């Protein structure tokens, strides 16, 4: 349940999909499948670009408004980084299956928590990116996301990264931000009461986590940034090392 558990990912877990990934971090486990480019249905086809279709399925129950919100947020961000112009009238189909969410032993399940959507967004985002990389869907860049909350500790307001379910219940505001690998802001969703200054702080914190500099020597060696910002895993490095593993396995014969 702690937010400092290391993320884990496995690629190609679904043998019949074009690409797939299973990702777990901070109590969330999500499996994603990517199929595409396929032929889009008449109602979805666009003459100049591919349609990106995202479907989010909760662990228990059938999807409702909450899932539709997650789908629309993911769809608009992913459409920006997938090279949709490469496949006119095409369809990139992404399905996310939520398998586990962090348990709160102090609260009975099924009590709908107001901001329960936000903490799962970074995990959904990462799973999508890994699955898209596994399917070799052409992209402009990769992206990483993080969730930050502002909680009241006594009199002071504190910025908390990867807040626990308990912290979320009492948080003043919750924010999800995603950055591309070119350090551009891709997604910013916020909920709650906050000032512009607070948002600027959140932006800097999230950017510090998502956009850690990675140095490279003559295009060959990767130098790991050992310093962990606020004890958070370096997501960019995680994606890179996961993909290095996959490429090594795929091209073992070379």
């Amino acid at each position, binding site marked *: 349940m702690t937010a400092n558990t290391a993320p884990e990912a496995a690629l190609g877990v*679904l*043998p*019949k*999909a074009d690409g797939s990934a299973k990702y777990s971090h901070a109590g969330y*486990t999500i*499996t994603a*499948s990517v*199929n595409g480019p*396929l*032929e889009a*249905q008449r109602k979805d086809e666009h003459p100049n670009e591919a349609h990106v*279709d995202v*479907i989010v*399925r909760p*662990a*228990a*129950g*059938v*999807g409702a408004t909450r899932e539709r919100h997650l789908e629309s947020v993911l769809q608009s961000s992913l459409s920006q980084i997938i090279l949709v112009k490469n496949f006119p009238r095409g369809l990139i*189909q992404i*399905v996310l*299956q939520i*398998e*586990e969410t962090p*348990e709160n*032993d*102090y*609260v*009975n*399940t*099924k009590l709908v928590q107001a901001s329960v959507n936000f903490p799962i967004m970074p995990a959904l985002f990462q799973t999508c990116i890994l699955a898209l990389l596994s399917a070799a869907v052409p992209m402009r860049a990769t992206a990483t996301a993080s969730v930050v909350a502002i909680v009241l500790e006594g009199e002071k307001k504190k910025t908390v990264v990867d807040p626990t379910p308990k912290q979320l219940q009492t948080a003043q505001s919750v924010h999800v931000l995603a950055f591309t690998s070119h350090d551009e802001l891709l997604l910013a969703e916020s909920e709650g009461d906050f000032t512009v200054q607070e948002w600027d702080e959140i932006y800097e914190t999230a950017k510090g986590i998502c956009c850690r500099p990675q140095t490279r020597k003559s295009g060959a060696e990767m130098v790991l940034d050992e310093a962990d910002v606020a004890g958070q895993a370096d997501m960019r490095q995680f994606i890179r090392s996961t993909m290095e593993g996959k490429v090594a396995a795929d091209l073992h014969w070379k």
Partner: protein
Amino acid sequence: MPREAEPSLNEKTFVLQALQEKLRLDGREFDQYRPLELTFGEEYGVAEVSLGKTKVLAKASAEVTVPYPDRPLDGVFQISTELSPMASPAFEVNRPTETEVLLSRLLEKTVRRSGALDTESLCLVAGQKCWSVRVDVHVLSHDGNLIDACCFAVVAALRHFKKADTSIEGGVLTVYTPAEREPVPLGWLHSPFCVTWSVFGEEGDIAILDATRAEEQVRVGSCTISLNRHGEICQIAKLGGTAVEAIALLNCTGIALTKAKELSSYLDGKLAEDAKRRDKSGRAELLTAENDRVTG
């Protein structure tokens, strides 16, 4: 609706020709299942089943709700099997295909109607409060034989699941959180399993178990037998398709019983293994508040 590609003439001819020479594409015997794997999640009631490349995830959950007015002493039990494009791009959400409808009906008859779960034990306050148990089946990958895999996953998830402990004092219902009291298992009466036979050939004389997707697309008929390890049959479904000799069908039922027993002992073994893993401190016996129950 995106249409799934029909197998080619070459494939259809070859699969049948190979079966006539007693050969299957993956080298299995006619009555051999693919390697079956079952993993339980950290949470109670999560079961992931893989049968070769077919992968299914079942999740059981429960919440307190109002019982149906015409059945005040029973709880509510639902099984939901919505197929998504994750299983195959041929499926669309909210547009049930024939596969989905049949799957859902077979699971309904096998698990719900056969009384595997004791719905009376779900009643909390007659006519006012009861447990509503639901199992959500998610097909992650479709390589044939969804019925057998889904049924196994549903039964595994329900047997693994534990609902919150409750108590009633003076008409007031208290539902305890997992931190206050250990959750309790569901009232389970017997474990049904589905065994699906696929039929080939003009005479319907070749029958195999656990068809892959490629074999399913070429088959001329299929028959699903649901039964538990005691040989009690919940249902037999042969919905259309080429006619099959009655003797052959009886033979299939006999082999289905052997398979059901194998599935049952595999499941029992996995549940015991999981219980042992969770009970590292040896305190599980002290924490449980229920009497010993003889389970089928």
